[in-house]
Structures are given as structure tokens and as C-alpha cells.
């Protein structure tokens, strides 16, 4: 661990926690812009299933990601608790669709454990740390990695022989 990392972890870390299925996850509160109730989502042809589509956040068109799909979890049931957590990803905003939000939790350095190598439901690369307080374990996410969607291909458009005009 570098000095910078030690210093960073020495300060208490604040996370917004939310549920997906049986597990509770956390995203750094500094990256969270707002939490909104589920919005109408327009699916985008040619994107992956992880991308639910785009929604209108007060005039801004922003993509919404299904974290369930991203983590390889089965689709959940619709519920009035479903929300979109709007996070900052570089200069853009991205919505994360989650089952329900739980709380804002503070972890001291002592309450943070390195992610285990095995035994996680989700890709270990997405996990920054495990947060342990109030007798619960929260999976704290490295959201920038979660949102780096490199594993999606754009399909090639259908080829047709169009008719040229005037030649």
C-alpha cells in the first residue's frame, strides 16, 4: 500500500449503501449526485443488456445501468423501492438502477477489510473493500471500474442494397 493510500484509508470513509438481492453494497458518497425514483427509461438499440437505456433527468439525457445485470445477478422484481442513484463518472452522469437504498454509513479505517480473493458473488475487481460495522458486511464498490464498460460490442448494421437516385 502506498503512502497516499494509507492516508486515504486513515480518514473515515462515507458510503451510500443500497441493496441488490440479498447483499448490501456501498458507493462512495462523494460520487453520488442524487437519488431519484425510477424514471421512464428508453432502451437504446445496439447497447448491451447492462445498459437499461437512457432517461430524462430534468432535461439531461443520461444512461441508466442495471447493476444487477452488471454483477451477473438475475433480474429482480419491480418494487416501489426501486431507485436510480445518479453518480458522477468523469464529466458525465450515469444512473445506477438498484433495488433500494439503505443508509449513509461511515467506516473507520479499522472497519475496512481488503476484498477476499474468493467467496464473492460478483467480480472481485469491482470491490474496493468490505466494510464491517453494526454487525453487517457491506461490499464497497470501486464504481469507476464498475462503469468501465469495455466488454460490450456494437453490432454491425444490416447491409442492404439501396437504390441510388439520379445516376
Amino acid at each position, binding site marked *: 500500500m502506498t503512502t497516499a493510500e494509507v492516508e486515504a484509508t486513515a480518514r473515515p470513509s462515507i458510503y451510500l449503501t443500497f441493496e441488490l438481492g440479498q447483499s448490501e453494497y456501498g458507493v462512495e458518497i462523494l460520487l453520488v449526485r442524487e437519488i431519484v425514483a425510477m424514471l421512464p427509461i428508453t432502451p437504446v*438499440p445496439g447497447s448491451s443488456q447492462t445498459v437499461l437505456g437512457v432517461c430524462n433527468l430534468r432535461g439531461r439525457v443520461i444512461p441508466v445501468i442495471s447493476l444487477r445485470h452488471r454483477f451477473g445477478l438475475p433480474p429482480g422484481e419491480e418494487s416501489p423501492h426501486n431507485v436510480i442513484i445518479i453518480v458522477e463518472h468523469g464529466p458525465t452522469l450515469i444512473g445506477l438502477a438498484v433495488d433500494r437504498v439503505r443508509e449513509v454509513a461511515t467506516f473507520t479505517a479499522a472497519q475496512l477489510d481488503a476484498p477476499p480473493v474468493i467467496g464473492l458473488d460478483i467480480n472481485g475487481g469491482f470491490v474496493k473493500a468490505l466494510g464491517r460495522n453494526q454487525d453487517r458486511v457491506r461490499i464497497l464498490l470501486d464504481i469507476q471500474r464498475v462503469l468501465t464498460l469495455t466488454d460490450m*460490442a456494437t453490432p454491425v448494421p444490416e447491409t442492404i442494397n439501396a*437504390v441510388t437516385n439520379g445516376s
Partner: protein
Amino acid sequence: MTDQDSLLILFIDETRDHLEQAEACLLRMSKDAGDDEALQACFRALHSVKGCAGYFDLERVQVLAHACETLLERLSVHDLTASQESIEALLAAVTALSTMIGSLKNGTGQASGPPSPAEGEVIARLQTLALAPAAASVVRPKRAPVVATTPLAELAETLNHAEELLHVGGEMRAEQIGQLDGCLSVLPVLGASIGGSGLAGKIADTMVLLRPSGGPCAAIDSTRRAALLDAIDHLRLLVPDTVPGAAQSLATRPSAAEASHRLNELFAKHGLAHQPDSGAGLVALGAGGEMAPADKHRAQEPARGSAEAYSRVPTARLEELVTLVGELLIDQATIANHPTIGDMPDIGAVVTHQSRIVRDLQSIALALRMVTLASIFRKTARAVHDTAYKLAKEVDLSIEGEATEIDRTITESLADPLLHMARNAVDHGIETKSERLAAGKPPTGHITLRAIQSGDHVIIIMTDDGRGLDPVRIRRKAIEKGLISAETALSDQEAYRLIFLPGFTTAEHLSEISGRGVGLDVVHRNVQDLKGSIHIDSTPGQGTTFQIHLPLTTAILDAMLLRVGAQRFLVPVASVMEARRIRAGQLTAVMGSRRVVECRGQMLPVASLRDVLGITGTAAEQAEKEEILVVVNHFRFRYALLVNDIIGEQQVVIKPLSDHIPHHPGLTGSAILADGRVGLILDPSRLVQFGVAS
């Protein structure tokens, strides 16, 4: 941001304008060496650059501008003719100055200190030319140098005249404000040459009083008048040992007529042609191009003393305004279409009125994004000039319609394509002088650059009278380079389009100007990105015409709303040729799954939008009949799309689709629909990949 910083930004902007103007004038002089007006305007522009640079201690800018001035002064007193060589040297200097100013803006530049080697070379060229002996044969009346007397005396005189103008009494008309602005606009230059930081600061304050938003203020009320008079008094106190004439002038205040007369004298001294009957005090200062007077108002740089007040506004703020107005429009439409509005006639009337206001607001917001093509046409003119000079060809460029307005974002992406096309026309289009004479053409090649507005499109046409495109040679080259197979049959039109393919060139030798096969593909790509199209027409031996069709704006779109299952898509109305319900049996299956439909005597390929976009949906949606046919015509390609329904037409504000998520290449953007949901915009030219039509 400190005051000094914001002043520097203003300086950079103004200097850019001055340099552009100097360049335009030099190009005029290269056509007509005796164009005295252009020479004077160029002199003034460079003089302003030098003066302002002095204020910011930009030594390198000053030195170079000074070298230009020295040469121009020799030219202006007519003991030296404006040779092509001098004009080239001056153009090189203007380019060097632009580079310096550009690096200043990026914060990378070192504008003080000794000149760079390249600048040194330009300066040496200018000095050599300025020292050349006078041409004995040129006998012209010798005139006084343009700037005379000591700066101190001039400053005193300027202050007196400004004061007189302010004391004339009554309400100041735009004309008088223009005069005052013209009078005071020499202050920064004078202040810089006199020196003293207190003076320079006070002058800057005075200018802010007069030009609160970059241009002269629209009206001067009594408060502002008192403040200006106060500022002038302060300035007097700051000038060391000033102004023998001050007391006298206050004692014997001349009449308004005399003040105006003396102002004219002062204008003359600065080489400014004062137009007493012009509403815009200093329009003559901006006179650069050969434009009709009506155009002049629109096309010249706005920050100068026109009677209308102008402001420089950051582009980002304009974008924000357009976005917000767009949202307002959507909200307004939502209210206006709400079913309960019909029950409330009072509210209904208000909503109707409101919708008119919002629409007006939108057209104003959009108009703010519009700029004229004058600036990029000037750049193109420079490219034609430089290329012709390098290739030793004689090329005459005529420009029409440079006052045509287009979205600012479009001009930004249009500059490169136009430069490429211009270089290409001079290099490949126009023949050498001997070739032209042999072909029985006039020795000077002619290129016309024209812009016209047609509905919601702007058409830019570049025509040359050169050798034209040779479809046979293009075809042969394309086969050689493996771009097409030898069996491909192509019409002439299709052959012309091959020159837009990356890597295509017919040039036998690589040159600095063209022949690397990069260029026209950039043109094609940029134009496509702007949702425009290019058409080529060519007659061998007679020339080539490129026509670029561009939308007026990239901000809004007239769109047709299509429905596929539960999803809605927008397609530009401009690319829809026709839409109709098809009856059973009108689709003909060919080659297995392919279908065609007859439309106006042509058999068009048919694609289901659902299949093209890979939309799944519920079984019921899948089973819904696709019986609406939308014929799209883009880029001379036609095909038909099958959709479930057409919902209507709507004007939408285009919002980019996030780069972050992958999407079908046929989607170009998104828009908020009347119900607040997001609709996706289709680009018919990218929705399907075109096979080569047979």
C-alpha cells in the same frame, strides 16, 4: 480572474479580429497593388495590434508588428510599390502574429523576450524589403505619414475632443456615441506609448465606462456622462505636464459644429476615414472586404464602433441558454397539450400567449448561435492565395454570400473541409498557366466560393474552371489502390464519390499541399458529422463544382416520430421522401429474405426498422403488422423503412447520446419528447450499410 486577465482575453479577441482584417486587406492588395484603402486599413489594424501589445508588454508581438508597420509605411507613402514579395512577407508576419496570439490564449506562449528564429527570419525579410530603394518610376504625391505628432499632444487633443462631445448637451444620439467611441478608442494605444501604469489603468476604466459590454453603450445618460467627464479629468491629472490646451479649451468651448470638425481632423490624423453621415462612427475602420454596404454591417467584426451594441459572450453560456429554452419549450408544450386546459378558457388564453413568447424566445436563442461565414471564407481565401503562390499558379477567387449565417458549431467543423477543398481545387483542379493557354482558356484560373441559404439549409458551392474530374482515371486509381474491384461497374457520379474514400489520391507526386490522400475523406467525414451532404459535378476540361448542403443549425431538428412496438424514434423530416400505408402484395420478395417495393417507378429495398435495430419486445408487439412505409432519401440513396405507425411531426432540441454507452451506429442523438420521455434520433444514412447499388 484578475482584471488584467480579463483585459488580456479581450486583447486576444480584438487582436484576432485585427489580424483577420489585416490578412483580408493583404489579400486584396495582392489582387490590386494600388488598393490604397486596403493598405491603410491593414496599417491601422497592425498599428492597433502593436499599440495593445505594448500595453501588455508583449515585446515579441510589438517587434514583429512594428516591422510590418515600417514596411507598410514605406508602401503607404508610395515610394515603394506593394510587390508580391512584400505582401507574402507581410502575410507570413500576420501568420506568425496569429500563432503568437494563439499560444497566448492557450497559456503556452512566451510573448515577451527575444523573437524566435522563425520570427527573426520574417522580421529580417520585412526589414530588407522596407530598406529597398524607392522605385524611380513611381511618381506619386508624397503624403504625410499616417501617425504623426507626439503621443502626449495627441492624448491631450483626444481628451479635449471627447470632453467637447460630452458637453454638447441634449441626449446623445447613436452617431455621437459612435464619434465619442472612435475618439476614445485611440486612448489605449496612446496610453501604451506614453507609459505609466496609473495612466493605462485609468484609460482601461474609462473604456469600460464607455463600452460596458465590449461595444459602445447604446445610450449615455447623465450619470454616465458625468462619470466619463470625471474620468477624463482624472486622465488629465495623470498625464505628466499636460495639456497646455486644456484650460483654454474649457474656457472657450467651441460650438458643436466646430467640435465635429475638429474630430474629423483627428480622425484624419489617425488615417481613419470618418463618415459624418454614417450612423456607425467607425465603420470605416472595419472596412475590409468588398461588400455591399448592407452586408458590411452584418459581416464586419461586431465589437468595433457600430452604433448597435455588441457583447462577447462565452459560447458555453449560449449553449446553456439554448438548452434551457429548449426545456422551456418542452414544458410549455406539455402544459399546452394537457387535456384539462380545454376546460379553463382563461388559462388556455394565457398558455397560448405564453407559447408564442417561448417560441420567440427560442428563435432569439437560436439566432445567438448564428455567425456569418465571413471569417471562414477569409481563411479559405488565404489558403487559395498561399497554395497558388507555392505552385506558381494564377488563381482568382471570388466570394459571394459571406454574410450567410450558420450555426457557430457548424462553422467550427466547416473550416477544415473548406481549406482542404480550396487547396485541392488549386492543386488538382486549376491547370498551370501553360496548360490553360494550350487548352484555350484564360491564363488565370478562377474559383468561386458561394453560400446561399435555402430553407433550413445552407448550400456552399465551390466551383473551379480547371481540368475537371476524369472518371476513367479515378476508377483506374481506385482499382490500383485496391479500393474497388476491377469488375465494379460505376456511373460517373459514383466514380466521383470515390475521391472521398480514405487513402484515395490521383496525384502522381506527393507534395506539401496535397497528394497524400488525406483531405477529401476528412471533408466527407466532417460534412457527414454535421448531418450534411456533398455533391460533385464535373465536366472534363471545364471544371468541377462541389456542393455542400448543411443544416442551418445542429441544435434543433424537425423530426417525424415513428413507432416500433412500444418504442418511438425520430427521423429528420428532411430525409423522409414519402410515407404511406402499404397494401397487401405491394412488397415483393427477392433473393430470399430481401424485399423490395415500387415507389415512383423505382424498385426500392425495404428494411423493417424493428429488424434493423434488433428490437425484441413482447410477442404481441412482434406480431403487430408493419404496414407503414417510410421512404428515406439521404445522400442520393433511397430505401424504405417499415414501421408500425407514424405518430406525427415534432420540432425537437437535439441532445447528444452519451458516448459512454455503446449504441447502434444509426442512432445519432436523442431528444426529450412532449411526454418527457427520451426519444432516439435516427440517421438514415448510417442505419443500414449500403452495398454498391447494381
